[in-house]
């Protein structure tokens, strides 16, 4: 009996109800049953049962067989195996990819560490959230502010004051060993207020006694070696009243981490200063000189406390005064955020540096990732057959996506390992060069590991996403039938990526040129003085040098090779201080000590011998006694004076200036004198900063400056070292070169720019690496076309031109987009400089040309290879 087909309508319904993968078996099973029912129960009943059964399949509506195939592990193994085979098969491709990504990641990790270190500053204090530094235009304030806050306002829990004046003091041990050390003076609750852990001693009482000193662990070892440092007595010279005093070591503190804004090795109690007879500014309100910190009770609003300063000022100093403001700078933000103070006793980072570095890190990573994506998609033609075969064998798209992600994950992990190796090699020299401890960024290990992991995952996602989605989308029939549509495929994505990459590269090349030119400009700028071949000796005390000056001058002048001898308190590169000056024509008589001007102290002969040019008048002369109270202005000050004090200052010579200081204990006239000359502006401090208006004094000097003929420098140094004993100078023999000292003033900035330059070049190199790989694939792809062209008579040159042209077009587009970006950012960057170059057209032309040349030369290797190859080799096999 031939089978009776089941009712067609019901079967159609079944087809709609269940997914297609079940349809065959279920409809078969149902048909089988239908036959049986039809035989036993009659056709009508069988049809009814059939329909009912079909309806029951509504419960399987949309259900699917989930493929948790038990061989998923072995498939994964297969992916890894195929990935490694591909790595080994295309060695140069893998090398380019992994090294590019590895270098990129190393840069990113390094910058990540740098940012971590910079942002980790002062985060280790226990009550750090509540500690603030009092500051307005300076990083320090008068000695009364902090204690008065603590006394008058219950919101202030405690305070601590620090003085950084005592630098380079002679420290002698009981065994007559001598060191020169910087010493800070701090209120006795120092170790309780800040969190600087003690190795030995009691943090509450160690600075209670006036003759106690706390030293760092490193200095304990330096001074006493293996001996127990506690209880040892050391002599420190010129601490107060110029005397040498004994101090007993009462505590040893752990070495201060580099990410503390306070850097010190020896701490003396603040109480000492009260015994200093020469220091009578302790109670003076309008005089800023002490680093002051307060700890607020938790939950106190610092802004409210800032406003209280006005009350205190009116109550204790000047009831009439209005608008006195100070800032409560959180100690945790201090390092990065108060870099624009007029002056400070601590080093600062710069939040802008951190931002620029972060931007560069992202750019480098992006370029490396784009390389990866480009190369992976360019290889599509090679891999498309594999994709086709896998699909025919039953691979789902999902599985292919997993496969390609797995491949990019393997590459990324190898790149991460390479990056870590690079870091291990590169960090120690960078630490030394940049005077930073990048490993401090590792102290918070959890977040570091997390950061690395997140970065790795982001990289995998960026690098893997495009190839995974693109390659897996191929139709197997199209690939395997030899249809070229799928090969190489969507060239526009790759082209866009290349354009994007080169846009960044061109911007970076232009940027690097501008940075380099600006650095050169700063280096070659006419300083307004001649720093070359000038030796600077620190004599120890200005009194001693003044007494010995005639002898010293005569003796040094007779040494052969010496061109001139000078003495000066300030030398270019120093920070000058603000004092009060009343210029003739100053009318605001309510202000008791005039306007604040920078006082710059030089000795006889200094301006002339350093080659500072005079515009008007003359320099100080030893022969004219009144010159000790005379003043010289620099050009900026002269112009400022004309602006502020009237046109009478058009002729400044002979005008009087009153000079106010707090040296007597309160603001008072220190000296009064006339202006005898005006100098041309010279760079008295870092070239990054504008030239300030200066009032130049003649004053006793601590430093002996000797200008020499450069080839005789060593002889002169030897002679002076001999004389040093004879002079009985209060300091050990020491010397510096003025040009080096001056460069030291802007070393940090220069270093930062150098790092920018290095990172830019790395980014460009990585981009080129990618282009090199890409061009090889393009040349390979078109190898048959090239061969046919050659057979038909095309010249090699025209083939090279054709291949290069493809890339040049992309670069042309990149130039158009890169130039405005570079212009915008470099203009912004240059605006940070007081003395800057202009952005002229040739940067942009040169940058674009350079990018084109770099691109052509990277591409040309492969295009020449392709163009000169024998067409037989590429046409012989199909």
């Amino acid at each position: 009996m031939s089978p009776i087909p089941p009712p067609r309508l019901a079967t159609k319904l079944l087809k709609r109800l269940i997914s297609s993968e079940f349809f065959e078996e279920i409809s078969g099973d149902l048909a089988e049953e239908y036959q049986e029912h039809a035989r036993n129960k009659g056709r009508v009943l069988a049809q009814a049962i059939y329909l009912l059964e079909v309806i029951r399949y509504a419960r399987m509506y949309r259900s699917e067989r989930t493929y948790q195939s038990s061989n998923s592990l072995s498939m994964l193994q297969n992916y890894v195996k195929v990935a490694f085979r591909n790595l080994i098969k295309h060695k140069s491709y893998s090398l380019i990819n992994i090294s590019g990504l590895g270098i990129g990641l190393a840069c990113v990790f390094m910058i990540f560490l740098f940012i971590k270190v910079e942002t980790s500053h002062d985060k280790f204090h226990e009550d750090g959230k509540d500690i603030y530094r009092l500051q307005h235009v300076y990083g320090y304030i008068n000695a009364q502010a902090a204690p008065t806050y603590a006394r008058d306002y219950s919101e202030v829990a405690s305070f601590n004051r620090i003085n950084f004046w005592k630098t380079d003091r002679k420290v002698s041990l009981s065994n007559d060993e001598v060191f020169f050390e910087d010493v800070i003076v701090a209120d006795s609750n120092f170790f309780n207020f800040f969190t600087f852990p003690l190795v030995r001693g009691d943090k509450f009482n160690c600075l209670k006694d006036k003759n106690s000193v706390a030293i760092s662990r490193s200095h304990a070892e330096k001074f006493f070696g293996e001996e127990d440092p506690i209880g040892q007595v050391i002599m420190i010279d010129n601490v107060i009243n110029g005397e040498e005093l004994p101090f007993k070591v009462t505590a040893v503190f752990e070495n201060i981490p580099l990410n503390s804004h306070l850097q010190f090795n020896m701490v003396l109690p603040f109480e000492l200063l009260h015994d200093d007879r020469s220091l009578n500014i302790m109670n003076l309100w309008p005089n800023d000189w002490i680093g002051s910190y307060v700890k607020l009770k938790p939950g106190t609003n610092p802004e409210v406390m800032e406003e209280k300063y006005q009350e205190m000022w009116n109550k204790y100093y000047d009831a009439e005064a209005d608008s006195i403001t100070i800032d409560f700078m959180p100690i945790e933000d201090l390092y990065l955020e108060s870099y624009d103070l007029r002056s400070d006793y601590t080093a600062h980072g710069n939040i802008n540096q951190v931002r620029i570095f972060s931007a560069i890190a992202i750019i480098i990573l992006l370029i490396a990732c784009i390389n990866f994506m480009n190369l992976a998609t360019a290889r599509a033609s090679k891999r498309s057959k594999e994709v086709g075969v896998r699909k025919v064998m039953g691979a789902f798209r999902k599985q292919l996506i997993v496969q390609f992600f797995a491949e990019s994950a393997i590459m990324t992990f190898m790149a991460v390992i390479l990056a870590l190796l690079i870091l291990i090699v590169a960090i120690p020299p960078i630490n030394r060069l940049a005077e930073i401890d990048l490993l401090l960024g590792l102290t918070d290990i959890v977040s570091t590991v997390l950061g690395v992991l997140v970065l790795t995952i982001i990289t995998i996602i960026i690098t893997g996403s495009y190839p995974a989605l693109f390659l897996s989308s191929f139709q197997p029939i199209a690939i395997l039938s030899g249809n070229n549509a799928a090969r190489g495929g969507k060239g526009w994505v790759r082209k866009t990526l290349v354009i994007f990459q080169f846009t960044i590269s061109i911007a970076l090349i232009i940027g690097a040129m501008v940075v380099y030119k600006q650095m050169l400009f700063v280096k070659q700028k006419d300083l307004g003085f001649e720093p070359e071949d000038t030796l600077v000796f620190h004599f120890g005390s200005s009194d001693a040098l003044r007494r010995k000056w005639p002898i010293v001058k005569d003796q040094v002048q007779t040494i052969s090779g010496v061109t001139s001898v000078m003495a000066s308190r300030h030398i270019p590169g120093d920070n000058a201080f603000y004092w009060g000056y009343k210029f003739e024509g100053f009318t605001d008589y309510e202000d008791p000590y005039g306007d604040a001007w920078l006082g710059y102290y030089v000795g006889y002969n200094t301006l002339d011998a350093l080659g500072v040019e005079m515009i008007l008048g003359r320099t100080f002369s030893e022969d004219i006694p009144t010159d000790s109270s005379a003043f010289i202005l620099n050009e900026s000050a002269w112009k400022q004076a004309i602006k502020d004090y009237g046109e009478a200052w058009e002729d400044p010579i002979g005008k009087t200036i009153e000079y106010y200081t707090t040296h007597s204990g309160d603001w008072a006239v220190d000296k009064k004198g006339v202006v005898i000359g005006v100098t041309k502006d010279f760079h008295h401090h870092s070239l990054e900063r504008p030239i300030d208006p200066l009032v130049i004094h003649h004053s006793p000097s601590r430093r002996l400056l000797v200008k020499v003929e450069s080839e005789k420098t060593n002889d002169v140094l030897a002679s002076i070292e001999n004389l040093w004993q004879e002079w009985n100078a209060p300091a050990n023999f020491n010397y510096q070169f003025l040009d080096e000292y001056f460069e030291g003033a802007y070393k940090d900035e220069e270093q930062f720019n150098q790092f920018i330059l290095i990172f830019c070049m790395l980014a460009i190199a990585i981009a080129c690496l990618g282009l090199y790989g890409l061009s090889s694939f393009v040349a390979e792809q078109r190898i048959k076309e090239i061969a046919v062209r050659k057979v038909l008579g095309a010249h090699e040159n025209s083939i090279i031109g054709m291949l290069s042209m493809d890339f040049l077009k992309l670069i042309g587009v990149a130039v158009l987009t890169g130039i405005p970006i570079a212009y915008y950012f470099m203009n912004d960057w240059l605006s940070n400089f007081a003395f800057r170059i202009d952005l002229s057209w040739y940067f942009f032309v040169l940058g674009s040309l350079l990018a084109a040349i770099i691109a052509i030369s990277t591409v040309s290797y492969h295009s020449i290879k392709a163009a000169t190859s024998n067409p037989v080799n590429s046409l012989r096999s199909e």
Partner: protein
Amino acid sequence: MKGDHLGELEELVLLTVGSLYPKAYAPAIKKSLAEKMDRKVVISSIHTVLNRLENKQFVQSSFGETTPERGGKRKRYFEVTPQGFKALEVLKSRRDALWGNMVHLMPKLS
């Protein structure tokens, strides 16, 4: 829940799949259940259970031959996987443990 739990019908179907090896397909299972266990189950229930068991990886399946009654549609044969066997074993040993106690009570009960 997913993966290890076996419902009563699931257990029966699984056992039947095992007993019919290698010719276990839905109508045969249905027949076997009706004959040996006196359980009338509609074919759609068998399919649902089989699908569930397959998702739990207790059975695996492959297409087999076709017969004229089926209108050219292939049969899908099921077989018990090692996991499925293990699940049955566990269930059985737990039952046996319970039976162990039952044996002591038996005299009183019967």
